[in-house]
């Protein structure tokens, strides 16, 4: 080849793309959906025993919706795994079970309560069980020999999550080492892992909270009812509206009041707060999220407020 011919091949950088005919651009939600489906299918093609983390919350409901779409008209080729803190909202558990039976799925439940009952874990002084989920999760992964674990984590949730790969390798202790992440190039995901290691996979990595809600709206995805405004008895602690449940109730001096609230995230009931809201429909929620000046975790999760690196520390240990 002549130099010119070779240079010619490289003209892409200098050719004006605006003048050449471009393929039609797809809508942002379409692109995010296609990317998530691509990720689900890669895992189905490369791993032997994948599982979807599923709590019945909004992100995992969207995750399941995408998994159903990725393999349609065949069923989802993975089971679900719920790490049950024992501090659940009744309606979320009911919703979880209903989805499982509607789609004829298999659900594996790992119970934090079992670990507390037999002394392998001790209740924390603050009564919060989110940090206690890590060990039951890792044991369930090991016992079921799951080699890929789908999570609903998004990069926009938190600064440490913003750093995580779509395919995130965990060592045989389930740990994440943020300093040794593999390069992740183009959309070529590297699923190789050694015996004992497993992969955490995040199909919603590039979604924002608003994208998730717009997608719920577009796809008419049904959610657990507490994501929408409802009347509830709540009490204030650390600037959050908490509710009574199996995890306990108000302490002395904490007054119970009835308010119209909704939840932006759903986790351990002892540390997940409700926000005052009049958002009764998905359209209302979208308007509210767009106008909010707090992140969903900042607004409603005591566990993330603990320290500058609370999330990173939990992730390093093997948390979601």
């Amino acid at each position, binding site marked *: 080849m002549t130099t010119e011919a070779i240079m010619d091949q490289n003209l892409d950088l200098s050719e004006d793309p605006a003048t050449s005919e471009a393929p039609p651009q797809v809508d942002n939600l379409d692109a995010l959906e296609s990317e998530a489906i691509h990720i689900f*299918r890669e895992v189905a093609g490369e791993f032997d025993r994948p599982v979807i983390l599923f709590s019945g919350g909004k992100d995992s409901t969207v995750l399941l919706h995408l998994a159903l779409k990725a393999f349609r008209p065949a069923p989802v080729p993975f089971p679900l795994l719920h790490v049950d803190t024992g501090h659940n909202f009744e309606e979320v558990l009911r919703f979880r079970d209903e989805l499982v039976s509607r789609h004829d799925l298999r659900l594996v439940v790992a119970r934090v309560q079992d670990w507390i009952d037999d002394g392998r874990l001790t209740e924390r002084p603050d009564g919060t069980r989110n940090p206690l989920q890590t060990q039951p999760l890792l044991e369930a992964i090991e016992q079921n020999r799951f080699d890929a674990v789908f999570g609903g984590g998004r990069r926009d949730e938190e600064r440490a999550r913003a750093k995580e790969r779509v395919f995130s390798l965990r060592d045989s202790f389930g740990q994440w080492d943020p300093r040794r992440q593999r*390069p992740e190039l183009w959309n070529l995901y*590297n699923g190789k892992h050694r015996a004992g290691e497993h992969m955490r996979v995040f199909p919603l990595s590039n979604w924002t909270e608003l994208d998730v809600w717009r997608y719920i709206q577009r796809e008419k995805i049904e959610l657990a009812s507490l994501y929408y405004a409802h009347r509830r008895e709540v009490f204030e602690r650390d600037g959050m509206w908490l509710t009574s449940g199996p995890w306990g109730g108000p302490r002395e001096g904490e007054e119970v009041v009835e308010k119209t609230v909704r939840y932006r995230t759903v986790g351990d009931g002892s540390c997940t707060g409700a926000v005052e809201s009049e958002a009764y429909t998905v359209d209302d929620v979208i308007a509210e999220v767009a106008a909010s000046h707090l992140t969903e975790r900042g607004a409603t999760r005591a566990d993330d407020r603990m320290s500058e690196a609370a999330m990173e520390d939990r992730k390093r240990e093997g948390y979601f």
Partner: protein
Amino acid sequence: MTDDTETLTRFAPDSGTEVALPVHTDLLRLATAGSVDDGKSTLVGRLLHDTKSVLADQLDAVHRASADRGLSTPDLSLLVDGLRAEREQGITIDVAYRYFATAKRTFVLADTPGHVQYTRNTVTGASTAQLAVLLVDARKGVLEQTRRHAAVLALLGVPRLVLAVNKIDMVDFDESVHAGIAAEFTEHARALGYADEHVVTVPVSALHGDNVVERSERTPWYTGPSLLEHLETVPVAPDPHDVPFRMPVQYVIRPRTTEYPDYRGYAGQVAAGVVSEGDEVVVLPAGIRSRVAKVDTPDGQVPSAAAGRSVTVLLEDDVDVARGDVIVAAENQPRVTDEFDATLCWLAEKPLTPRARLLVKHGTRTVQAMATELTTRFDEQELSGVDSPEQLELNEIGRVRLRTSESLPVDEYADSRRTGSFIVLDPSDGSTLAAGLVGVPLAPLAASVNH
């Protein structure tokens, strides 16, 4: 609080005001690049802050963390440097992805590290970028690492560059400093294959906000747009689209249910071109011909689907297709070969030596491979080629001859990013060793091997 902190007013939208939902089809993916400490993360923090994309609790956390560190002004880089080690050392280690929108456009922003040790993470952030903002410290000018990043960006085919001459406040907003750096860099970029009109230079102060979102009065000699104005209006360059339909098969969907007893669909994401019902296609590497009976999607059948869309293709004939195969347009097929020239960007501590055993993942197929010959190493400082290097070391770019255990259907990277790219893996531990590009999509490297 000092005067400076007061300028960082918190974002507190009046409740009750109409909110324009930032919903666009117009999306720009961009990455930062440039040497360590040139101000990339501060610039990203400033961009997020000044476009009111930072929520109050995030900003509070930055105010608190800055105060804890004894700083009198908030350090906006803490908005993106999210790892403990990053905050302790004051450097970026891994890519942070941030999403924000203005009234004009939605942005996916990858803030990458400048430190040479973490170049692999910079490559990660840049591999999907449509534009890169390359920063230079006005006091230091174009550095070795600036040139290394520029070479990586050119190699990956990032179509547009912005050279941000940062810390312009530290050189008294001096026009000649800016002009000198701009001239030197533009010439360098030209040698890498960038047309002048695709490289835009903006003098900025990430720390104080000059020319980031608003044009600054302190650079009256600069008449161009602010960085954000440019990012909002620059034409979004599509990926190269010189090849017709390509789709690597990810998974075979066979429900075998009473409702769908005979359904057999090939699931994948359209990697290039458009697929339509009735199209004549070929399944590679086997070379079997067939016709598209149906293009299925999770929302039902469609007449056709374009690049980027995840679909399920059903063929008219009962042919044997499995994961790893590529379905392509019959009229213009990729080369099917087990030996080809490629350019590698080596990302591992362990150097590449000739004849080392490797794995190559191309599309959805992973095969054994070997670099039978290291033809040329690219000197990204001098933009020249070094013939027959003994090995390719961490962060080095080189042209190699690759042999694979099975034939692969490959396009040139310059024609198709998706079907012209691959990753190189270590068969012993599965780690990712290199970014691979079919052909030699880097002008000065191609020229240097032309003999």
